[in-house]
């Protein structure tokens, strides 16, 4: 064994304190190619960061570097700049690694003064052991000239299907260590394409169908643990709800939905309840069903001459926001989880404000994302739950069906801005948008919680 330890060193700078004023309407900025911005400062007051690469270029670390660089950029919390001579700049190389990779490799040299001079707040080192079964991550505080956090994750070979997800978890850990809130790289987005349910990683990789072929799938939603998806199967004008376990891949019908038209289901935050829309002889209403006890179908709304649909739970599980046509065009309402106390939620001007649909409560409970028709095209809006103030996030093309990332900061949505309906993401704080991937005809996205570790004891 010639070389036992290898590493990649990043230096990144945080945007802390620079994002007090939300930037709205930047969604016309072209998408960022390749995930790296070079010398562009897009948030006032933010210092440029840098990306320093060094060490031996093993296959694992090449992949780790590529994925991490992209993930950290997609977090919209750091400015990462590739030095022109980046790959040639050797930061240091250890001799032979100590047997325990958790111990500080003796040869690592962290050049704090250089990083500080280049404007970095943090530096990141990623190491592998001699057998590459573990990634060891260190976050250095450049100004404090000290190690801020260290953590390790087991990792398989680059060809291991779980490899990318492990690296995404590394990125999320780095974001958490630097900002206090984990990143959202180790997540997936479910969506419908060609009537089939697909899942794709948050960076656009590993797109794969998960519902059986030939089944017409509709309106997916994730369970709070990221293990199951509930979706509707449309059959000749009726629809039943299926629970799909992502490990076994077998859909199971939710019992009371064998009848009528059931769709737009959502899990309660504790995963015990399903709320969903059900259409029958009296129009469409919101129902709940106790999944944990397999019982207790309950009708929460009674709209004889109006429709009520598309429920979404508050993260404390006590309230449900939903769409109602009780005064005419669809608008956003809210009620208690037992159906009492129904009232208008997102204010609108009758006869002026366009239809409002597809609400989703943010994971931190402070905002509702939804889409609202503006001059005939749906656009993404946010409502502050406390003040009930509404602001528009998008303006280019049709933008609809927003879904929150678990950080409560990013949204995925469907946009037709480049022609066909595709999945895009937006950072609600900076307005930066990205096209998740180039698959046309996508609809009804659902952003997952953090994906649990597969076949590994949780650490």
């Amino acid at each position, binding site marked *: 064994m010639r070389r036992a330890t290898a590493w990649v060193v990043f230096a990144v700078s945080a945007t802390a304190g620079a994002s007090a004023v939300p930037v709205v309407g930047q969604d016309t900025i072209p998408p960022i190619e390749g995930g790296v911005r070079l010398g562009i400062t897009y948030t006032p007051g933010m210092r440029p960061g840098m990306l320093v690469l060094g060490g031996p270029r093993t296959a694992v670390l090449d992949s780790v570097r590529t994925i991490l660089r992209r993930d950290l950029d997609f977090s919209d919390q750091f400015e990462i700049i590739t030095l022109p001579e980046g790959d040639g700049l050797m930061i240091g190389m250890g001799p032979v690694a100590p047997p325990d990779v958790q111990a500080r490799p003796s040869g690592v040299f962290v050049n704090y003064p250089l990083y500080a001079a280049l404007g970095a707040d943090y530096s990141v080192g990623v190491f592998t052991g001699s057998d590459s079964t573990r990634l060891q991550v260190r976050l250095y505080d450049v100004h404090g000239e000290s190690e801020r956090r260290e953590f390790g994750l087991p990792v398989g070979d680059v060809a291991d299907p779980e490899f990318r997800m492990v690296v995404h978890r590394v990125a999320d850990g780095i974001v958490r260590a630097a900002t206090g809130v984990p990143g959202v790289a180790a997540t997936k987005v479910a969506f419908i394409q060609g*009537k089939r349910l697909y899942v794709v990683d948050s960076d656009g990789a590993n797109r794969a169908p998960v519902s059986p072929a030939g089944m*017409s799938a*509709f*309106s997916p939603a994730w369970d709070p643990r990221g293990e199951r998806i509930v979706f509707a199967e*449309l059959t*000749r*004008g*009726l*629809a039943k709800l299926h629970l799909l376990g992502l490990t076994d891949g077998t859909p199971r019908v939710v019992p009371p939905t064998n009848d009528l*038209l059931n*769709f*737009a289901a959502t899990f309660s935050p504790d995963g015990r309840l399903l709320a969903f*829309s059900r*259409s*029958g*002889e009296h*129009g*469409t209403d919101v129902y709940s069903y106790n999944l944990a006890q397999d019982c207790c179908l309950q009708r929460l709304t009674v709209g004889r001459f109006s*429709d009520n*649909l*598309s429920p979404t739970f508050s993260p404390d599980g006590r309230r449900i926001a939903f*769409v109602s*046509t009780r005064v005419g*065009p*669809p608008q956003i309402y809210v009620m208690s989880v037992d159906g009492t106390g129904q009232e208008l939620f997102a204010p609108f001007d009758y006869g002026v404000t366009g*239809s409002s*649909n*597809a609400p989703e409560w943010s994971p931190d409970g402070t905002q509702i994302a939804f*889409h609202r028709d503006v001059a*005939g095209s*749906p656009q993404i809006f946010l409502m502050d739950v406390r003040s009930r103030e509404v602001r528009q996030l998008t303006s280019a093309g049709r933008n*609809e*069906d927003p879904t929150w990332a678990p950080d409560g900061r990013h949204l995925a949505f469907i946009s037709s801005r480049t022609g066909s309906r595709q999945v895009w993401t937006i950072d609600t704080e900076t307005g930066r948008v990205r096209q998740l991937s180039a698959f046309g005809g996508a*609809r*009804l996205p659902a952003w997952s919680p953090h994906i649990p570790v597969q076949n590994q004891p949780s650490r």
Partner: protein
Amino acid sequence: MRLSLSITAGLAVILVAAACGGGGQPQVAVGPDPDSIAREQRIRDSIAAAERARRDSIARAEEARRRARADSIASARAETEAVLAMVAERIHFDFDRSNIRPGEDTGILEQKLRVLQANPGLQVEIVGHCDERGSDEYNLALGQRRSLSAKQFLVDRGINPDRISVRSMGEEQPIDMGHDEDAWAQNRRDEFIVIAGGDQLSRPPGM
């Protein structure tokens, strides 16, 4: 029935005539005595002729009967198909609306009402559809509302609600794939599908 009786009667006359002709021959003795073999041959020929005539007559009668039945089936089928076309005629809606438009659509539903009244065994399914512009989830509810509107129209006028079921396809099944107002107008519709009692249908009186 009357036709087959008269044919049977005619057949009897022919058979009697043949028998009498055969019996009368020997009394008219002209010239040499007829050869008995030839005479028997003539008798056999005439019997065969009578038999042929009988068979032809039966075949003609059966052909007539078959044609009559076919004509009556064809006419019943034509009537059924005409009524099915009345049932299947679509109605359309304004954008984001589910009310029945007065005029043409009301007329179409009035026709369906009379068909349902004239055919008590007929059961239909109404499927509401939307254009592509509204929200995907909302459109399922809107399609349901559209099918319910048509059902309510018919139930209000005395049709048993159990004879009409309602469904919605939302925007999932456009019939015009275009992305303009013409296509949208075609796609905002109710479709009417016979689910029982449609094998033989009667025209409503006067239609």
